[in-house]
């Protein structure tokens, strides 16, 4: 008999609830873990997600639709009890906990274990089946302490008062977290932001996340941005947009920055290893802690994690999911 949860290339189907988790094609009923485009697509009939995720989807895809589900709240759907639990990835991100026929399945979505001033921390939920990501599923990925990375950014800024530091950070999540981390490190100067970040930062503020004074980086003289931090989406780092800035030091906040060649390819001068995904130690520690009897790996470098599970007597399989990692690359 097939299991009541079925992995498909386009998402995870929860048969008794007739609902899909993070489907990559429009479905009538979708359970969405968080707002990144590779998990939250437009065009679904009805969406269940946290209030924050729904707001993010409304911002990106237009009209609001769907049922908000608060963290910890229980939803019953065709004999399945569904709960959303903080995943610590971005604002509103959730693990989806499903219980049916005496079995508990946790779908992590994307997650991380370290503190993030812009979202609730990950809560481990013991379960029978854990469906996990593996974006940084190689032991070379071990994110350093966030505070020391932010300090390197501030040191570069203070060493070059005539220049600005331009940080590439993904528009949803990373950009706001970076700003939050800077504030937490005592940096209260105005931060200039690319136009593509404005609405998302405003949305975070609406949810009570204080990002301090943000100013648009457009339409002001370059010299006003000297000695300041400018945040833009990674795609704008080396593009025409950045020509307006005063001799920028190019930085990028991403877990991939740990590997020299990756940073060099992106023309980055100041690579900051700041990630919203679990690193290798977080992935393996979580597996130990949650202790599922079976692990399914959705996307990333699943081979290494599979091998690790095998050598630790844990049952695991890789799912062939399509279209992941399109937007949030770490």
């Amino acid at each position, binding site marked *: 008999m097939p299991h009541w949860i079925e992995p498909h290339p386009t998402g995870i189907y929860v048969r008794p609830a007739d609902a899909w988790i993070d489907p990559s094609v429009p479905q009538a009923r979708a359970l969405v873990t968080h707002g990144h485009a590779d998990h939250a697509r437009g065009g679904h009939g009805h969406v269940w997600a946290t209030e924050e995720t729904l707001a993010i989807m409304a911002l990106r895809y237009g009209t609001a639709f769907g049922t908000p589900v608060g963290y910890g709240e229980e939803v019953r759907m065709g004999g399945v009890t569904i709960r959303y639990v903080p995943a610590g990835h971005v604002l509103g991100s959730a693990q989806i906990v499903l219980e049916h026929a005496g079995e508990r399945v946790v779908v992590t979505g994307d997650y991380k274990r370290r503190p993030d001033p812009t979202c609730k921390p990950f809560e481990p939920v013991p379960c029978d089946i854990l469906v996990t990501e593996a974006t940084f599923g*190689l*032991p*070379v*990925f*071990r*994110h*350093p*302490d966030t505070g020391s990375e932010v300090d390197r950014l501030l040191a570069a800024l203070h*060493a070059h008062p005539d220049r600005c530091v331009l940080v590439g950070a993904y528009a949803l999540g990373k950009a706001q977290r970076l700003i939050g981390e800077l504030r937490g490190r005592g940096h209260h100067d105005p931060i200039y932001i690319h136009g593509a970040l404005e609405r998302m930062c405003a949305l975070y503020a609406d949810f009570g996340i204080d990002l301090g004074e943000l100013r648009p980086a457009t339409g002001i003289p370059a010299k006003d941005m000297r000695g300041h931090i400018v945040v833009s989406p990674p795609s704008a780092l*080396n*593009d*025409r*947009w*950045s*020509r307006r800035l005063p001799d920028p030091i*190019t930085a990028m906040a991403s877990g991939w920055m*740990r*590997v*020299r*060649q990756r*940073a*060099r*390819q992106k*023309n*980055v*001068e*100041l*690579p900051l290893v700041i990630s919203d995904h679990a690193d290798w*130690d977080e992935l393996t520690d979580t597996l130990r802690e949650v202790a599922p009897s079976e692990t399914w790996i959705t996307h990333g*470098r699943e*081979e*290494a994690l599979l*091998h*690790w599970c095998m*050598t630790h007597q844990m049952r695991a399989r890789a799912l062939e999911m399509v279209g992941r990692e399109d937007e949030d690359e770490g």
Partner: protein
Amino acid sequence: MRAFSQLLDGLVYTRSRNGKLDLIANYMRTAPDPDRGWALAALTGNLDLKAVKASAIGEMIRDRTDPVLFEMSRDYVGDLAETVALLWPKREDQPPEIDDATLSLSAVVDRLHAVSRAAAPAKLAQMMDHLDASGRFALLKLATGGLRVGISARLAKTGFAQAFNLDVDDVEECWHALSPPYTTLFEWAEGKSDRPDPAGTPFFRPFMLAHPLEAESVDLTDYAAEWKWDGIRVQIVGTGEQTRLYSRAGDDITGSFPEIAAAFRHHAVLDGELLVKGEFQGGQEHGGAAASFNALQQRLGRKAVTAKMMDDYPAFVRLYDILLDADEDLRALPWEQRRAALETTVPKLDPHRFDISALIEATDFESLADIRAGARDAAIEGVMLKRRDSPYVAGRKAALWYKWKRDPLTADCVMMYAQRGHGKRSSFYSDYTFGCWTDEGELLPVGKAYSGFTDEELKWLDRFVRTNTVNRFGPVREVEKSLVLEVAFDSIHESKRHKSGLAMRFPRIARIRRDKPPHEADTVAGLRRLVS
């Protein structure tokens, strides 16, 4: 170790020369002794450690990680030292990504000096436990003897000089009187002692360089003319006991050309062109021949040279000038007197490895122009003009020496691909690959250029690339084959590296030919006829 590992990281990621100099200068000012001295040794390639073999590193990591995970990681990262540095598992009681500041660079150097081959893996492992990923990478690179941060010894010395407001040439002059960790050098730099005395050591003197000739003509009673040979400028410094070869940047290249150093036992400092024997450029009537620059290139940038390399590409030096004759400094003398001294010196040298650059006999400037025009057939780059009364002075001084290159060749080519530049140009598509037509009507790439245009033209070219992209391959854009570029180049050679079988020397964009339809661009066959 953290300050040093951060410096290395900075040098890897910083593109601009000034940025790199700032990083080095800042480190040299702030790091403690003797750390900074060891760092200077490492950056200038003067840190002589018993190199730990890569196999020792492999052995060390296999004891500590799952071999399958290690192989997967190495496949992903590429570099062995980086892979090991990144996945190094620390002991349970230690925080994973902290440099605990218990290991200074000098402590690392001391231990690496002392370590035996057998004990290397264990000693390294012990040190690895105290470092963060950058520190572990720096340690492994130091241990295996290849920092590879993409800077020359000269740049490191320039950074050092900048830190203490010194003239790099003053540093250079005493450099070879010093040894790591350069205690006396730092004492002098900080004004605590006199400059170390370089007497008796083979140190580098800055080169005299030439301006391009822009005047219509010069008077040959004031200027002497000689051929401009296409090799690399070298300075041979001999003390009678030791001999060193320096490149134009002041880098010690003795190791790449041991046969030259071995053949020179003289006590003198000479300036000349390093060349490979052959018949490509020049001939009997030019006072000698030489192989092409491409042949010399086979010998450049090598740490170790095989006997076969020396046989296949035998090097020699064609001498231009003499700076010192024994201990007598001739640099203040007029060129004519130095030339006379050179002419008496050269016959005393091994004729197999040294000859003299011949002067061109021309009655007046017009006849010199004719001679120069004929030089293309002999594949000679051009003519040098040297004021007969010029002293030998560092750098480019107006009106003393001129280079008068023969006019460039040009070809009309079609832009095929474009790539972004670096640094200030990183938002511009500024590197262009262009091609010419085959007989079958196919475009084949014949070269790549990233200079020659004005800032305005660059903006226009960038826009052209963005609006005419037909394909993207990672950072490379393929463009609509519609734009003709007039490309200027000094010469063109057979090359196996390109599908067209041709390689240009110094290609640059001379003009954008918006007026010219692409099918009227030149052919590969036409270009081949220009091969010298």
